């Protein structure tokens, strides 16, 4: 939603115009008539005065003639919100303005402020025909496939891990733990955008909310990590947790293809992956029992790099120096990480408790060196 607002709309103003206090509403309607779409909402209908308008500044003059409080949206075809006005009481009028570019939209009235609403098509034509750069659409599509591939590839690995836990095989479970997380870590910002899956599968004990009981409410990878490395035993509860992990990850696999992804969210997601590294992995907090932090670290960087590579053709046109710097810093961080694995085709990294203070600082410095320019990528693709 945020990205849509940033890239499509240059200005959104909401004008509240209760009839009781604005006597001149009718006059102003007449003045700017061709830019105004009258929307008449009732409890069962949503009538619009125009189905087509030229691109640019538009204004919705909304009147609620129904008995329920309503809300009115302008939506993209995929239901992202262009603009909205909530809490329009019965018998009142409201105005909403927006800048829209050419494209297909829908106006939705939601009597009772519930459900999908009653919809009318709106076609916006001409004007500054500034549809998104098709290369960015391709980047989003490619990233969407990548996120799906990562989820698809993760499930079998997670099932191997879960099976080992259910079989009570401590060593096999430990071995399968880190590999089962790689696909998740590569695409974590997408999974986090759903809000409900991440707290179930990837929360750490200190990440539980107030009132949550670690004995009952702590689920997912890290609870099992603690059992395997700290408690050194697999309980019946752990076996149930392993089953639950697969259920939750299957939910992720089913939903990941429908995630809201934009070029800006890809760029910001890349930065967020580096933030994850900076605050969780470099400190050794993420994998405090297994010390497999460098596996997550590598996966986070790979996921960030994927987003970056897809956005690079556009970013390069807008900010060539940034691309040069990012290429350099990704390569430097990759090279540094490779010092911690004997075989660069494997994800078997040095246990993080064996990485000394000076080496951790070196890793932290390399993350900062990459993350700082990476924070400028979103602006370079939004230009």
């Amino acid at each position, binding site marked *: 939603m945020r990205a849509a607002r*940033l890239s499509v709309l240059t200005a959104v103003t909401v004008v509240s115009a209760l009839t009781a206090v604005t006597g001149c509403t009718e006059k102003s309607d007449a003045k700017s008539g061709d830019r105004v779409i009258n929307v008449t909402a009732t409890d069962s209908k949503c009538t619009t005065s125009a189905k087509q308008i030229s691109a640019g500044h538009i204004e919705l003059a909304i009147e609620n003639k129904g008995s329920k409080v309503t809300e009115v949206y302008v939506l993209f075809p995929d239901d992202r919100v262009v603009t909205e006005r909530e809490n329009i009481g019965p018998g009142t009028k409201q105005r909403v303005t927006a800048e829209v570019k050419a494209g297909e939209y829908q106006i939705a009235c939601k009597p009772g402020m519930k459900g999908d609403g009653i919809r009318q098509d709106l076609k916006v034509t001409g004007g500054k025909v500034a549809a998104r750069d098709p290369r960015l659409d391709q980047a989003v599509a490619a990233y969407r496939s990548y996120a799906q591939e990562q989820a698809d590839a993760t499930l079998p690995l997670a099932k191997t891990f879960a099976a080992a836990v259910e079989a009570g095989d401590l060593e096999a479970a430990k071995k399968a733990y880190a590999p089962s997380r790689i696909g998740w870590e590569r695409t974590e910002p997408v999974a986090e955008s759903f809000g409900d899956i991440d707290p179930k599968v990837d929360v750490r004990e200190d990440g539980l909310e107030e009132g949550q009981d670690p004995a009952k409410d702590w689920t997912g990878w890290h609870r099992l990590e603690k059992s395997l490395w700290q408690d050194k035993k697999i309980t019946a509860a752990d076996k149930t947790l392993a089953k639950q992990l697969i259920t939750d990850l299957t939910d992720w696999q089913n939903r990941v293809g429908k995630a809201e992804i934009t070029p*800006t969210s890809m*760029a910001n997601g890349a930065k967020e992956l580096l933030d994850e590294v900076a605050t969780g992995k470099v400190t050794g907090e993420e994998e405090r029992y297994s010390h497999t932090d460098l596996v997550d670290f590598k996966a986070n960087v790979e996921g960030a790099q994927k987003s970056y590579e897809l956005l690079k053709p556009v970013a390069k046109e807008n900010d060539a120096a940034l691309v040069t*710097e990012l290429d*350099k*810093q990704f390569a430097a961080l990759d090279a540094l990480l490779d010092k911690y694995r004997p075989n660069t085709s494997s994800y078997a990294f040095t246990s993080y408790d064996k990485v000394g*203070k000076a080496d951790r*600082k070196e890793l932290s*410095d390399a993350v*900062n*060196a*990459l993350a*700082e*320019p990476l*924070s*400028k990528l*979103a*602006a370079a693709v*939004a230009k």
Partner: protein
Amino acid sequence: MTQDRSGIPSRRALIGWGGAGLALGAAAAGGAVAMTRTGEDVDPAAAETGAAVAFHGPNQAGIATPVQDRLHFAAFDVTTTDRAEFVRLLKDWTEAARRMTAGKAVGEGGYGGLPEAPPDDTGEALGLKPSRLTLTVGFGPSLFEKFELTDRRPDALIDLPKFAGDALDAARSGGDLCVQACADDPQVAVHAIRNLARIGMGKVVIRWSQLGFGKTSSTTPDAQTPRNLMGFKDGTRNIAGTETDRLDKFVWVGEKDGPAWMTGGSYLVARRIRMHIETWDRTSLQEQEDIFGRDKGEGAPVGKAKERDEPFLKAMLPDAHVRLAHPDSNNGSTLLRRGYSFTDGTDGLGRLEAGLFFLAYQRDVREGFVRVQRNLATDALNEYIQHVGSAVFAVPPGVRDKDDWWGRTLFSEEA
């Protein structure tokens, strides 16, 4: 133009037209920052009004400048191997320093830019006055090993020898370069280091940094001499910012000293000196005064009535601190001291992690700090202090004008 009553542009006012172009900013700076570096700027009112200290001049600001109340000192290591990239950083730093010392935000400011991008300036100094911020850059011995500069390393920039009692922590020592940020407002000093570190990411990394409060030496003799954490007045006989003859004799590198690129520069020794606060506090007043060689209340030398009376060294115990550190005991060696007290919380044993962050500027390290510190080997004070961090830097001359940059004389062949 928005100015407050004192005629000094506030950061908030200045940032407003960050996007309006540099011409406006330059005009404002010209009007507001009228003071010169040394001598004339000893203005007691300046601290109260939060004035700006001129950035341009033959020497870097922050040496002879009246000592501000707060410090953030950072030592950096260079990670880039590309000389051109490092030079670009020095230029970017100079521009950022030029703006921050004038009370302006870095780059395009702290807000109002592209919503998709993080702001250029981190924002915590918006609305604050320039607060006499000075930023002073120095180059450590290890920098000359990089970028093939070994033949340009000054002879006076030696690696400090090991002194008796040193317990140096490598993680708090050394550095390829340093930035000393001094300001009357700690937030302004921290903002400056934070933004320079951010601009430097990918090219340099912070090796260590130190916050300081409570200046322990003054370069303004008319002002009250500050006290260190041991409760004694410190730096009574320090070189004043107005004493141009002593500055030329003891602080600034002269044309004949060489190398040419250092003319107008100086050498900085930084020492993190931990004080054993708790044992000191249990020491009798008599012993405390004997150790320093001055009385605690007035600060007068042994046998004298007033702080500024000429000390009679032979009246002091042979191991008294003032006696051993005095120029007369060191072939005339005189340092410009600019140290700050520090308290970094407590150590794991519940003791104050506190002391003196000693900063001394001199014309030649061999004839300055080294000579004095060797003489302090028998200092009675050593029982209560420990040197735990150490660094030495060549501080290049000042940035002359808007086209000049930190280190130009070292990195440009013309010098």
